[in-house]
C-alpha cells in the first residue's frame, strides 16, 4: 500500500536521497578547484527540501506507515526540520575547509548521516530504529576521521568508531532481549504490552538500561561521554559542530519517543534514574569545562553539560517537559552551530584553537566578536538570546514535576557556566593581542561563512525574543507523545 500519506511521511528522505545522488553525479564534472561549490548545492538543496516538505509533507493526526516502521507525526517532522537546518548550515561551514569541504564525498556523507537522523526521529520499530542509528553513525565515523594526514583526526574517527560500535552493540542486545520477551519490535505495540504488566519488572529495567547505554552515547551523557572531547577536538570543526548538535538532538528524539511512549508505564523508575544521570552529567560537564584551554574541548564539555540541562525536561515526564526539551534543542542547535562556526572561521585564518588566541578578536573583527558574544551568552542562558528562554522552560517543567532539587542542581551548574563562558568573552573583549599591530588585520569571512553565521546569529536572537511560534511547534510535537 503506497498511499499519498505514505509518500508524504518519507518525502524529505526521498528528496535527500535524490540530492545525495545529485551530489555524486555532479561532483566529477566540476574542476577540482570548484568542487567546494558542491556545498552550495547541498545547502541550497536542503533548503528547497525543507520548503517542499513544509508545503507538502506536513503530518496530520499521527499515523503509522510502511507496515508500522514509520510514525508520521509532528514530533518527527519538527525534528527532521531541525536536522535539515543543521545540515544545511554545516554544509556551508564545510565549504571553505580545504581538507574536507573541497571534496564532494564530505557532502555525500553529511547527507547520508542526515538521512539516518531523519529516520531516527520517525522510527516506530526497533529494527528500523537500529538501522537508522547505524546509518547516522557510520558516515559520521568517516567524517570525523576525514583528514587522513592529521593524527588527531584519525584518532577522533577511530575513537568514535570504537565507542560507537561498543555502545550500539549493547543497545542492540537490549533490543533483541525486548523482542525475545515480547515477540514484537513495534514501539507502539510494546507500549501496550509493557503497560499490561506481562513482564517482570527486573527484566524490563535491565533492557531499558542496555538501551540507555546506546542512547547515552549519542547524546553524550555521563558516564558515556568520554569520546566527546577527543572526537570534537580532532574532527574537522564543522563536523564537530554537527556532532554536537544534530547528532545529539537525534539521540534525544529517540530518547523522548522511547521513554515517553514505549516505557511510559515505568516512568516512576526511569525518571529517578535519568534525574540522577542528568544531575551528574551537568556537574561533570561543567566542572571539566572550567579547566579547558582548547576552545573545541571547552565546547565539548559544555555540550555534555547542555545534554544534562535538556534531560531535566525528559525527567519532568510531562507535555511541557517534552515541549521544553524540543525547544531547548532548537535553541541549542542554533547556538552551538554558531559557536562552532565562529571557531571554524577563526581557525581557518589563524590556525589557532586555544581560548587565549581569541584575545583582541573584538578589535580585529567587531562583527565576529559580537557573534561570539551572542553564541556564548546564549550558552550561558542570558536574554535576549535563545538559551535563556530554553533554560527557563526546562526549569519550569522540572519545578512543575516536583524535581526542585534537580532544578537547583541545574541552576548551580548554570552559575559555573557563567564563569567559564565569560572567561572566553573576556579574551574576546578585554585582552589585547601580544602584537597590537596585528589587531588591524581583520579576519576575513568568505561568503558561505558570512551567510551561515548571520543566519544562525539572527536565529539565536529570534528564538530568544519571538519565542511563541517555536514554542507552539514544540508543543504540537510534544502533544504527539501523550
Amino acid at each position, binding site marked *: 500500500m503506497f498511499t499519498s500519506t505514505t509518500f508524504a511521511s518519507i518525502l524529505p528522505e526521498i528528496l535527500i536521497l535524490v540530492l545525495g545522488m545529485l551530489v555524486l553525479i555532479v561532483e566529477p564534472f566540476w574542476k577540482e578547484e570548484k568542487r567546494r561549490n558542491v556545498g552550495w548545492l547541498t545547502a541550497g538543496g536542503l533548503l528547497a527540501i525543507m520548503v517542499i516538505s513544509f508545503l507538502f509533507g506536513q503530518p496530520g493526526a499521527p499515523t503509522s506507515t510502511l507496515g508500522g516502521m514509520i510514525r508520521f507525526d509532528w514530533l518527527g517532522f519538527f525534528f527532521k526540520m531541525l536536522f535539515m537546518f543543521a545540515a544545511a548550515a554545516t554544509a556551508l561551514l564545510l565549504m571553505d575547509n580545504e581538507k574536507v569541504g573541497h571534496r564532494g564525498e564530505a557532502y555525500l556523507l553529511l547527507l547520508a548521516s542526515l538521512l539516518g537522523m531523519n529516520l531516527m526521529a520517525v522510527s516506530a520499530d526497533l529494527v528500523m530504529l537500529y538501522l537508522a542509528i547505524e546509518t547516522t553513525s557510520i558516515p559520521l565515523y568517516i567524517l570525523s576521521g576525514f583528514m587522513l594526514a592529521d593524527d588527531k583526526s584519525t584518532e577522533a574517527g577511530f575513537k568514535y568508531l570504537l565507542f560507537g560500535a561498543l555502545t550500539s552493540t549493547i543497545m542492540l542486545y537490549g533490543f533483541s532481549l525486548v523482542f525475545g520477551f515480547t515477540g514484537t519490535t513495534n514501539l507502539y505495540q510494546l507500549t501496550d504490552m509493557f503497560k499490561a504488566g506481562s513482564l517482570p519488572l527486573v527484566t524490563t529495567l535491565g533492557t531499558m538500561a542496555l538501551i540507555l547505554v546506546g542512547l547515552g552515547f549519542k547524546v553524550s551523557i555521563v558516564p558515556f561521554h568520554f569520546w566527546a572531547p577527543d572526537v570534537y577536538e580532532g574532527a574537522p570543526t564543522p563536523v564537530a559542530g554537527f556532532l554536537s548538535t544534530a547528532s545529539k538532538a537525534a539521540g534525544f528524539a529517540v530518547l523522548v519517543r522511547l521513554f515517553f511512549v514505549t516505557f511510559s508505564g515505568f516512568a516512576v523508575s526511569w525518571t529517578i534514574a535519568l534525574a540522577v544521570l542528568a544531575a551528574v552529567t551537568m556537574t561533570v560537564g561543567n566542572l571539566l569545562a572550567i579547566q579547558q584551554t582548547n576552545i573545541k574541548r571547552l565546547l565539548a564539555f559544555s555540550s555534555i553539560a547542555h545534554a544534562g540541562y535538556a534531560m531535566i525536561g525528559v525527567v519532568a515526564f510531562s507535555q511541557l517537559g517534552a515541549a521544553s526539551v524540543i525547544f531547548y534543542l532548537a535553541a541549542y542547535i542554533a547556538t552551538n552551530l554558531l559557536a562552532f562556526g565562529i571557531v571554524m572561521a577563526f581557525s581557518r585564518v589563524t590556525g589557532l584553537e586555544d581560548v587565549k588566541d581569541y584575545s583582541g578578536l573584538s578589535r580585529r573583527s567587531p562583527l565576529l566578536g559580537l557573534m561570539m558574544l551572542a553564541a556564548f551568552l546564549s550558552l550561558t542562558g542570558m536574554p535576549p538570546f535563545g538559551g535563556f528562554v530554553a533554560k527557563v522552560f526546562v526549569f519550569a517543567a522540572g519545578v512543575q514535576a516536583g524535581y526542585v532539587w534537580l532544578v537547583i542542581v541545574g*541552576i548551580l551548574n548554570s552559575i559555573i557556566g557563567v*564563569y567559564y563562558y565569560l572567561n572566553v568573552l*573576556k579574551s574576546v573583549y578585554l585582552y589585547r593581542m601580544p602584537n597590537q599591530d596585528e589587531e588591524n588585520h581583520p579576519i576575513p569571512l568568505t561568503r558561505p561563512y558570512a551567510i551561515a553565521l548571520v543566519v544562525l546569529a539572527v536565529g539565536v536572537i529570534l528564538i530568544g525574543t519571538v519565542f511563541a511560534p517555536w514554542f507552539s511547534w514544540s508543543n504540537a510535537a510534544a502533544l504527539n507523545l501523550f
Partner: protein
Amino acid sequence: MNFPVLSVITFTPMVAALIILMLPAQRKNEARGVALAAATFALLLSFWVYFSYDQATAGYQFIEKYSWLPALGISLHFGVDGISAPLVLLTGVVMFTGVLISWGEFDESKHLSAGIQDRPREFFAFLFLLAGGVFGVFVSLDLFMLFFFYEIAVFPMYLLIAIWGWIQTREYAAMKLTLYLFIGSVVSLVGVLAMYWLQYKNTGILSFDMIGMEKAGFSQAFQNIWFLPVFLGFAVLGGIWPFHNWSPDGHVAAPTAVSMFHAGVLMKLGAFAALRVGIMLLPQGAHTWSWLIMLFAGVAVVYGAYIAFVQEDMKYMIGFSSVSHMGLVMLGMSTLNRNGIMGAGIQMFSHGVMTALFFAITGMIYDRSHTRQIPELGGMSKVMPFATIGFIIGGLVSMGMPLFSGFVAEFPIFMGVWQVQWLVAVIASISIVITAAYIMRNIRQVFFGPMPEKLEGHMGDVTVLDKVAITTLCLFMIVIGMFPSFMVPMIQTGVENVLRLLGGS
C-alpha cells in the same frame, strides 16, 4: 491613551544600541550623538509619563498588554504605579546624565582622557542595552518579562566593567559582580516558578501576570518557605548585607557612567523587584520574616556607614555609603507600614540621583588627577568650583539635611521603624552621624584642602556637558527637598496598594 509610551521608552535604548553598533567604528562623535539623542528622547518620555500619571485614580496606568506566549501565559504587560513611575524618571535622568559625562574630552598634550575614549560605540551599545533592561523591569507587570529584562540589565555590566573599568581590579570585580547577581536572580527564579505552578494548581490559571498573582491566595506555609529566597535573591542586587560585597568592588572597578548606573539605578532594580515580587506577591511571608530583613538592613545601614568612614579611596567610600543608604531602603520596606515603605520609595529616587552625582564628580576628578585616594587630593574647589558645589549639595542630601531630598526620604523611614521597634531606629540613626563625618571630611580634604604639588597646574575645569549633568541631578534633589509634593503624593498612591496587599495597617 493609545500611544504605547512605556514600550517606546523601553525599546528606545535597545533600538539606539543597534543603530550605534551599525555606525562605522571611527565615527566616535556620531555614536555619542545618537546616544545623546536617544537618551534625551527617553528622558522626555519619562517626564511625560511622570507628569501625566493620574494620582487621583492611582493604580497601574499606561497599561499595554500584548499576548506573547499564550500557551504558558506569558504576555508583554506594561504599566506603572506610584512607585515605579518615579523610578522610570530616575532611569531617564541617570541615562541622560551618564551619556553627557561619558562624552568627556580628550587632549593628548595634557594627558587628559576624560569620559569614554576607547571604543565608545560598543560602550554606548552595551550601556543602552542595560538601560533598556532597567526600563523593562520597572514597567513589566509580567513576571516572566520582568526576569527577561532583569537578566538583560545584569549581563552588560560584566562587559562594561571588564572592558572599560579600572585596570587593576576590573576582571575580578566584574566576575564577582556577575556571579553574585546571577546567583541572586536564579534563586528568585526558582521561587517564581514555584509560585507560578502553585497558582495553576489553586486556580487553574496558567499565567505570569503579577496583578493576577496578587489574588492567587498562596498558603501561609508556602509563603513562609519561599519569601526569603525570592526577597533575598532580588535584594542581592539591592546590596543587602551580608550579600553586599560585590557592590563596592563593582563601583570601584566600573567606569564613571557605569558606576552611576550601577549605584543610581541597578541597585534600585533589586530593591524594587524585592518589593514587587517578594513583599507584594508573598505578603504573609513578609509578615513572618520582616524581623530578619530588618536585622539585615539595620546592620547594613550602620556597618556600611562605618566602613565608608574608614575608606581612603573616594569610590570605595561612596560605594559603601550606597550600601548604607540602600540599607535604609530595605529598612523602610521591612517595616511593612505606610511611613516606612513611603520613605523607601522616596529614598530610592533620592539616593539614585545623589549617588549618580557623587560618582559623576568622582569620575571627573579621577580623570584629571589620576588618583582617587582622598589624602592625595586637595584644593579642587579652586579648579572646579561647579563640581564642588554639586558635591556639597550631594553631601547635604546624603546627611539627610532638611530642605534636601534626603530628609524627605529618611525622616519617614525612621518614623516607620520607630513604630515597629524603636531600638532599631535609634541604632540606625547612628549612621547619620557617621555619614556626616565622612562626607564632611571628604569635602574638607578633597575640595578645600591644600592642593598637592603633584597636581598643581595639571588640573582643568570640567566640561560644559559635565556641568549640565551636575545641574540636572542637583535640581532634582533640591526640588524634592523644597517641594515634597513633587513626589510624595505620587509614591503614596503606590504605597496604598502595597498596604492593601499586606492586609491594611
